[in-house]
C-alpha cells in the first residue's frame, strides 16, 4: 500500500521553514504515547523526512495512573537532512499530565513549544508529580517556553460525544487529539493515521469514529484557536531513491534472520526465553511460521540455547536470543557450541546492568561477557549492529560467518536499537547474497554399514572449519561432545599436545575470520588529530558529532566497528595514523581495555551508563576538549 503523497497541506499565513525538528510525546503509560509517536514517525517518513526515534518505557507494566513511575515517552526526530539520532533536545513537548511534565521538561530547549493537557493539572495530579504550586500558573514555564494549555480531556470528550463511547473509552482518544494538534503544528497530513484507525478499529466502528473525531478535533483546534501562532514546515529529505519503510530494530533483526535462513536453505529454529528487551524477536518470528520458522519458548535460557544447539546438530539454523542476565546463563552451553564447532547465533539485546539492573533501559556493558564470559580458552566471533535497519544485514552476516567457519557467533544489539526505528530502503531480495552451506554426502560406498571411522568429523577445510555432517546421512554416523577432542577423528582425547593443538586451532580459526570480512572503513581523512572509534548503537551519535566537528575543519575521523572479534585486519594501521583515539561507549570502557591490550595505544574513553544513548553534544564537547 505504497503512497506518494500529494503535498496538499493548507499553508496558513505564518509558516516557518525548518531543517529539522524533534517532538516528544509523554504521558501516562495508559495514555497511548507510543502509538502517537509511532504514527507521527510514520507520517513524517511518508512525507519524505528522514526520521529517528527513541521510545522510553517505564519498567512497570502499569504503574498507578499519574505517578512518575508510570510516565512513558516517545521522541521523534524528523529532518530534511539525513539524520542518525533521535535528537539531543526537544523542540516541541507534549505532556499529558504533571508527572510527564516534571520528568521531561528539562529536555525541552528554552523557547521550545510546550503543549500540556490542563485538565490533568488538578490537586492530585500536581501532588503525584511533586509540584508544590501549579507550574502552569506560577510562571515557572512562561515565558521560558511557548506554553499551550489545552483542555484536552474536555475537548476530546466533546469531540467524541456522538460516538456513544463511555467516558473511559472516550478519554482513550486524547492521544489522538494531541496528535492532531501536533500534525497541524508541523503540517503533516492526517490520511495515514486515518487509514491506520480504519484498519485497527475496523471491527469496532464506534471506536474508529471516535478516534477519527478526536484526531480531527485536535487538528482543527490548531487551525482555529491557535491560528495566530506559527506553523512549521520541514521539507523532504534527500534520501537515495527507492521504496522505503519505517522499521524497528527488532523487526529488522527478525526479518534478517528469516532472510538468512532462506538464503542458506535452512529451517530457522529459535530457542528463546522471554526477557525484555529481547522478547520482541521471539514474538516477531512467531508470526512468520510460513517462512519455515519454528519458535520454541523454552523453560529457561539454558534450554533455549541447548535446544538451538540441538537444531544445529540436526543441520538447521539454530538461533537463541536474550539479554544480559539471560546471556549470563548461556555461558556454559556456549562452551559446548565452541568445542563441538557447530554454527549457532546467539543474540544479546543489551540492557542496563549489572544483575536485573535497568531492564527497560539501554546499555553496552555486555561486551566483556560476549568476548570473555566463558570457562577455558573459548573464543568466538562477536559482531554488533549499529542501527535499527542495520540489523537486517548483520543478522545475515552473522549466519554467513557461523556456517562458513562452523562456530557460534555472538550478535550484539541493545534496547535503543531494538526499539528505535528509522527509514529503510527496501532491499532487492533477488540481489541478497546467497549463503552457501555444504554438508558432506553419504559415505562413498553409500551403504549404511560404512565403518564410521572412515568419516572424520574434525577433518578441517582451508578455513579450518570442520564438516557439518547431518543426521540422516548414511555412513557419517559420529559422536561429538564437550570433552576435548582428538584432532581429525573427533574422538575423546586427553593427550596434552593434542589439547594444545586444538586450543590453538580453535583460536586460529576464529582469528582467520579477519581474512574473510571487509577491511575496516573510515569516515574522514586517513590520518589526523583524533580518531573516534565506536561500536554498536552509538554509531548515530558518533557519526553526527564527527560530521559536526569536521564541518568546523577539525582533523577528526570516525571508525565504526561492526566486527569486534576478530577485528578487521587493518584496524591497527588505522589506529596508528591518528594522534589520539577516543572510544565513546555506554559502559565504563570495555572495548577500550581490549583495544589498549591488543594495540598498546593509549585510547581515551568517553563513558556513560545512564540507561540512555549519548547526545551528540556530549560527544562533540569531548572531542573539542581533546583537541584543545
Amino acid at each position, binding site marked *: 500500500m*505504497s*503512497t506518494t*503523497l500529494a503535498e496538499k497541506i493548507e499553508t496558513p499565513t505564518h509558516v516557518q521553514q525548518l531543517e529539522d525538528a524533534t517532538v516528544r510525546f509523554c504521558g501516562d503509560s495508559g495514555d497511548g504515547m507510543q502509538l502517537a509517536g509511532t504514527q507521527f514517525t510514520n507520517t513524517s*517518513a511518508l512525507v*519524505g523526512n528522514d526520521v529517528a526515534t527513541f521510545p522510553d518505557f517505564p519498567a512497570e507494566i502499569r504503574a498507578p495512573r499519574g505517578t512518575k513511575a508510570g510516565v512513558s515517552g516517545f521522541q521523534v526526530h524528523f529532518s530534511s537532512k539525513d539524520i542518525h539520532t533521535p535528537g539531543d533536545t526537544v523542540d516541541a513537548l507534549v505532556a499529558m499530565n504533571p508527572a510527564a511534565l516534571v520528568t521531561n521538561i528539562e529536555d525541552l530547549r528554552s523557547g521550545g513549544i510546550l503543549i500540556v493537557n490542563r485538565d490533568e493539572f488538578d490537586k492530585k495530579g500536581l501532588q503525584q508529580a511533586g509540584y508544590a504550586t501549579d507550574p502552569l500558573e506560577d510562571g515557572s514555564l512562561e515565558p521560558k517556553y511557548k506554553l499551550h494549555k489545552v483542555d484536552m480531556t474536555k475537548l476530546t470528550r466533546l469531540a467524541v460525544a456522538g460516538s456513544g463511547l463511555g467516558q473511559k473509552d472516550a478519554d482513550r482518544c486524547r492521544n489522538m487529539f494531541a496528535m492532531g494538534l501536533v500534525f497541524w503544528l508541523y503540517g503533516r497530513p492526517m490520511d495515514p493515521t486515518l487509514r491506520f484507525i480504519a484498519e485497527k478499529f475496523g471491527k469496532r466502528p464506534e471506536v474508529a469514529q471516535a478516534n477519527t473525531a478526536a484526531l480531527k478535533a485536535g487538528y482543527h483546534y490548531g487551525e482555529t484557536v491557535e491560528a495566530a501562532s506559527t506553523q512549521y514546515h520541514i521539507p523532504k529529505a534527500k*534520501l537515495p*531513491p*527507492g*521504496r*522505503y*519503510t*519505517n*522499521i524497528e530494530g527488532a523487526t529488522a533483526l527478525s*526479518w534478517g534472520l*528469516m*532472510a538468512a535462513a*532462506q538464503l542458506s536453505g535452512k*529451517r530457522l*529454529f529459535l530457542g528463546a526465553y522471554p526477557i525484555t528487551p529481547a522478547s520482541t524477536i521471539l514474538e516477531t518470528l512467531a508470526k*512468520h*511460521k*510460513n*517462512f*519455515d520458522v*519454528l519458535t*520454541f519458548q*523454552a*523453560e*529457561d535460557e*539454558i*534450554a*533455549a540455547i*541447548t*535446544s*538451538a*544447539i*540441538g537444531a544445529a*546438530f*540436526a*543441520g*538447521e539454523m539454530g538461533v537463541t536470543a536474550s539479554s544480559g542476565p539471560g546471556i549470563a546463563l548461556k555461558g556454559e552451553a556456549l*562452551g*559446548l557450541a565452541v568445542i563441538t564447532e557447530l554454527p549457532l547465533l546467539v543474540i544479546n539485546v543489551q540492557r542496563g546492568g549489572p544483575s536485573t539492573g535497568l531492564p527497560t533501559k539501554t546499555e553496552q556493558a555486555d561486551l566483556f561477557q560476549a568476548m570473555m564470559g566463558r570457562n577455558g580458552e573459548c573464543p568466538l566471533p562477536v559482531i554488533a549492529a549499529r542501527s535499527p535497519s542495520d540489523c537486517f544485514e548483520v543478522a545475515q552476516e552473522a549466519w554467513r560467518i557461523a556456517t562458513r567457519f562452523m562456530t557460534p557467533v555472538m550478535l550484539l544489539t541493545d534496547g535503543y536499537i531494538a526499539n528505535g526505528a528509522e527509514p529503510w530502503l527496501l532491499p532487492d531480495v533477488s540481489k541478497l547474497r546467497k549463503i552457501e552451506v555444504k554438508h558432506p554426502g*553419504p559415505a562413498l560406498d*553409500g551403504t*549404511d*554399514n560404512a565403518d*564410521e571411522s572412515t568419516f572424520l568429523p574434525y577433518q578441517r577445510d582451508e578455513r579450518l572449519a570442520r564438516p557439518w555432517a547431518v*543426521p*540422516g*546421512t*548414511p*555412513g*557419517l*554416523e559420529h*559422536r*561429538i*561432545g*564437550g570433552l576435548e577432542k582428538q584432532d581429525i577423528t573427533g574422538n*575423546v582425547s586427553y593427550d596434552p599436545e593434542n589439547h594444545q593443538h586444538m586450543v590453538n586451532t580453535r583460536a586460529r580459526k576464529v582469528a582467520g575470520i579477519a581474512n574473510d570480512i571487509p577491511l575496516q572503513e573510515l569516515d574522514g581523512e586517513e590520518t589526523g588529530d583524533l580518531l573516534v572509534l565506536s561500536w554498536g548503537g552509538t554509531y548515530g551519535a558518533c557519526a553526527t558529532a564527527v560530521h559536526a566537528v569536521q564541518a568546523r575543519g577539525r582533523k577528526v575521523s570516525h571508525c565504526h566497528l561492526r566486527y569486534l572479534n576478530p577485528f578487521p585486519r587493518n584496524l591497527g594501521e588505522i589506529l596508528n595514523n591518528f594522534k589520539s583515539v577516543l572510544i565513546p561507549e555506554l559502559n565504563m570502557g570495555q572495548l577500550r581495555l581490549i583495544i589498549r591490550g591488543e594495540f598498546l595505544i593509549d585510547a581515551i574513553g568517553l563513558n556513560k551508563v545512564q540507561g540512555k544513548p549519548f547526545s551528540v553534544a556530549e560527544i562533540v564537547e569531548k572531542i573539542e576538549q581533546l583537541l584543545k
Partner: protein
Amino acid sequence: MSASLTLPVLKPADFASDQDVRWCPGCGDYSILAQMKKVMPTLGVPREKIVFISGIGCSSRFPYYMNTYGMHSIHGRAPAVATGLKSVRPDLQVWVITGDGDGLSIGGNHLMHAIRRNLDINIILFNNRIYGLTKGQYSPTSPLGKKTKSTPMGAIDNPLHPLSIAIGCEGTFVARSIDTNIKHLGEMLKRAAEHKGTAFVEVYQNCNIFNDGAWDYATDRDTKADTTIELEHGKPLIFGKNRDKGIRLHGLDPEVVELGKGITEDDLLFHDEKAPEPSLAYLLSRMRHEDGFPEPIGVFRAVERPQYDAMINDQVAQATKERGPGDLNKLFATTETWDVAS
C-alpha cells in the same frame, strides 16, 4: 539419502562404535548397552536416522559406544538438546540417556518440561542412586540417611521418585526395568521406542564401585520374585515365587494379600496402563520395597497425546497453507511504504 530407504539387515554388533567401552568392569551400564544394541535392529529404523543425546555422567558416556549419530552434551541439558533436534527433524529417532543426577538434580527442570511437552523421544534414566562419575556423592534418589562422600553423617533430603515425578508432570509413557533383568529391559526399550510421545524409562542400575548392591533386593535370585512385581496390562497384580501373593486396593491404599484363603484374582487390583487419568500409575509409583511392597516393573502408563514435535511442524504447515510459503517481498509489502523519486 536413498541408501537410508533400503534397510539392510543389521546385527547388534553393527551398532557398536569403534570406541572402547570405559565403564568399570561389572558396571550395570554394560548390560543396558547390550540390550540397546539388541533392540536396535528390531526397530526397523536405519542407523543414520537414530540419534543418542546424553548429558554428563558415567551413564552419559553411552552415545560414544553406539554407532549412530550422538551428542555427549553438558550436564543435565540433554532433554533440551533433544527438543531442538527433534523439532526441526521429526524424522529422526531420538534417545536421551541420563542419570539420576544428570536427569533429576541439575537437569530436573528440562526433564519435567520435555515430558510435559510430550515430544516423540525416548528418555532412559540410569538410576544407580549415586553420582558415579564424580566418585560417589549422594544423588536425588539416594535414600534418607545414606552415607556417602558428601554426606558422612547420612543424607537428609527425602529422595525423589523418578516415576512419581514423570507422572506428576503429565507423562504419557512411564516404565521401569532393571539392568540385570535383560529380557524385560529389552522389552521396555522396545515399548519405549514404539510409543508416540515422550517415553520415560527408569532403569535400576548397579554402580558396583560407589554404590554396590543398591538394588540387590530387586535383583537377588532368591528375593526378587517377592520384592518386585511385573505389571501387565489388563492383568491382576500377582507376584511371589509361587505367584501366590497379590496387590489389592483398600480404598486408595494398595495392600499385599495372600491368594487363596477366600481371596481370588478378581479381588486384586488389575493393571490398566491406558487409564486416561494417571491416578493408578501414580499410586503404583508409590509402592516401595521399604514399605513392604513389591516394586512394580513394566509399563505403568502408556497413553496417546498430541506430540510437541508434530504440532510445532503442523503450525508451520498450516501457516504456509494459509499464507503461502514465506516471501520477503510480500512481507515488505505488508508495511506502510513510500517512494523517494530519483
